[in-house]
């Protein structure tokens, strides 16, 4: 931008200032959102001009949008001017031992079967040199580097691989996509970037766990994964340990590009703080996740275990553009107390012979509401498309709700689209049967629920699956009997 243009920008953006000015030296932006805040964020991160432009366009577009209200969720109106959009990553206070950690948190860790070392890592207790996660992460990075795989924070990618970021950023989820996508595009804090070169089979699960400084990516996370032709990667997001955050609103974007013959498996365990028993204080999680199977025979598979957040709004989607490409969505969403989840997927069939499979398992307890919302769309030129959707709901108790909203739009008569839905309750007789064999009600519920969600849990990487099983049980603790 030229000097003149800059001055002009400055001038025209004045009206947003509402009587205060931004201190660019500060660690934290003042509350509220305007163009200066967007500039502030970009400047703080030393971003190139094109990225600032991207943010500003997104911001200006966001101003023209209305907050969506079509999801089956209810929450007090968010005051977007009452949010802090940037604060420098805080250093976690180092503790000397686990004795200094909240005992309740330790109890939860134990129930999840998280190792002592892992507990220390997550609570900021100093760990000894041998298992120091930084050194693990370093070796990890070296191995990946030899294969040409890039796995780093989004900010690092902007610095080190600007051409890649520039090429793909917003290519799957444009900032015009929806309200929260526009917001994220304007103010995203950080996130992850993964790049798998042509023909490379990534030998290990890429997990945010191994990314140094993975903590504190902030409330507007941005993930971009590119799988070049013939490559393979399995990516893990989140962890089973409960995550708290002062920021109530989270609006992330995940974009995935899968080229010809490549395959991406994306697994998520989401366990944000769901609020207390009365539903107070939980996280609002409004996420846009989408991938494109860009080339023929590409495959994208989403697996998610959603147990946290007060309000979840999330539809990991697949654009099946390449011929014979495959999209999958496996989901377990658990809601308890006053949680609300509106989640599902979109399968957009554009290429011929494309296939998709949707398996959604909703589990509702307490006073919670759990909705599946899914779109299967078959375009005119997409010959011989096949889709199978299975949407099951399991109810624990009679104060919760389960809803299914399948949308099917078929524009080509050769398509075979199947949808099955069931709703069931955990039966008193199932619980009694377990009890009669000596199994207490808590464990009975865990067994039954894990059995119900098995098809999805089986899709998770092994270690993750075991933790996820425990997490389901923990989320539903005390919900029956």
């Amino acid at each position, binding site marked *: 931008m030229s000097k003149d243009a800059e001055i002009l920008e400055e001038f025209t953006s004045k009206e947003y200032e509402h009587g205060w000015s931004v201190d660019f030296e500060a660690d934290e932006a003042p509350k509220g959102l305007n163009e200066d805040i967007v500039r502030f964020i970009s400047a703080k991160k030393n971003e190139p001009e094109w990225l600032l432009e991207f943010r500003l366009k997104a911001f200006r577009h966001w101003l023209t949008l209305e907050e969506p209200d079509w999801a089956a969720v209810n929450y007090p109106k968010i005051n977007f001017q009452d949010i802090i959009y940037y604060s420098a990553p805080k250093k976690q206070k180092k503790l000397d031992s686990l004795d200094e950690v909240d005992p309740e948190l330790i109890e939860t860790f134990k129930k999840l079967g998280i190792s002592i070392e892992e507990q220390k890592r997550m609570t900021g207790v100093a760990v000894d040199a041998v298992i120091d996660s930084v050194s693990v992460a370093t070796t990890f990075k070296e191995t990946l580097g030899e294969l040409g795989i890039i796995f780093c924070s989004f900010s690092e990618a902007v610095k080190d691989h600007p051409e890649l970021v520039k090429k793909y950023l917003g290519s799957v989820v444009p900032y015009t996509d929806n309200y929260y996508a526009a917001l994220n595009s304007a103010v995203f804090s950080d996130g992850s970037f993964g790049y798998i070169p042509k023909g490379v089979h990534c030998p290990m699960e890429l997990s945010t766990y191994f990314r140094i400084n993975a903590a504190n990516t902030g409330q507007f996370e941005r993930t971009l994964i590119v799988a070049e032709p013939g490559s393979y990667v399995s990516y893990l997001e989140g962890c089973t340990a409960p995550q708290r955050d002062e920021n109530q609103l989270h609006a992330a974007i995940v974009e995935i590009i899968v080229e010809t013959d490549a395959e991406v498996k994306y697994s998520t365990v989401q366990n944000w703080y769901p609020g207390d028993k009365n539903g107070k204080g939980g996280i609002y999680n409004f996420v846009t996740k989408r991938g494109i199977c860009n080339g023929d025979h590409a495959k994208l598979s989403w697996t998610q275990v959603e147990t946290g957040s007060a309000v979840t709004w999330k539809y990991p989607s697949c654009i099946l553009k390449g011929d014979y490409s495959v999209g999958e969505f496996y989901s377990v969403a658990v809601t308890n107390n006053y949680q609300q989840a509106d989640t599902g997927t979109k399968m957009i069939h554009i290429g011929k012979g494309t296939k998709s499979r949707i398996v959604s398992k909703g589990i509702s307890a307490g006073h919670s509401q759990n909705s599946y919302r899914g779109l299967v769309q078959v375009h005119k030129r997409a010959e011989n498309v096949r889709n199978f959707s299975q949407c099951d709901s399991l109810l624990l108790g009679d104060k919760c709700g389960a809803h299914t909203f399948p949308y099917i739009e078929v524009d080509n008569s050769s398509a075979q689209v199947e949808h099955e839905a069931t709703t069931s309750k955990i039966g008193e007789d*199932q619980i009694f049967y*377990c*009890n009669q064999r000596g199994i207490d009600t808590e*464990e009975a519920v865990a067994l039954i629920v894990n*059995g119900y969600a098995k098809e999805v849990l089986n899709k998770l990487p092994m270690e993750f699956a075991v933790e996820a099983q425990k997490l389901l049980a923990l989320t539903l603790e005390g919900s029956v009997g």
Partner: protein
Amino acid sequence: MLKVKNLKASIEGKEILKGINLEVKPGEVHAIMGPNGSGKSTLSAVLAGREEYTVDSGSVEFLGKNIFGSSPEERAREGLFLAFQYPIEIPGVSTTNFLRAAVNQVRAHRGLPKLDAVQFLKTMKEKMQIVDIDQALLKRSLNEGFSGGEKKRNEIFQMAMLEPKLSILDETDSGLDIDALKIVANGVNTLKSADNATIVITHYQRLLDFIIPDFVHVLYNGKIVKTGTKELAYELEERGYDWIKAEHANA
């Protein structure tokens, strides 16, 4: 082992058990027979602690303790086992996983350490032989899509795994072909010892040729109206229940 005194129980305000008296000692086998709807399954459910039923009066002692203070799982861990007339399906949970949870909770209660995977599988292999059950069946979802006979055999397999003190078999013979009946009966006899006891609920004298009862009781209209030996079962087979009903028309 079990002392039931004047037990009355109801469901949804309807009295089903109208004063049951029954005493079972270690080493004994009792058979309970009786027409449909007389309260046999209700009695077993009340003994096992099913909460839908209200106990109106009477007492039940199991191993010298009042049973009404304990939850169904506590009773089970103490050694009360019920083979269900209609075993329940649990999708996605294999018999193996189900039993691992059960066995370990029961063992914990008895102060025994958990069985690790190897020990557990070894025990399973042994017990599988007792009822000649196929391992493939145990890997499938519990009771889901099992044939009637497979479900019953699986109940006895579970009994073998849990080593109960008192087993109540509610019409375990119904739905078994004659070979399966012999196998299951043989299994029950193998598990029999001087310290445990069995109550078999059945409609058919046939089973009692294989599992020889010490006592045969007739439950009619919520009461045990007749008690005898094996001979009583023959008599019922021959004459049906009309004569009993007639004798107790005013009961």
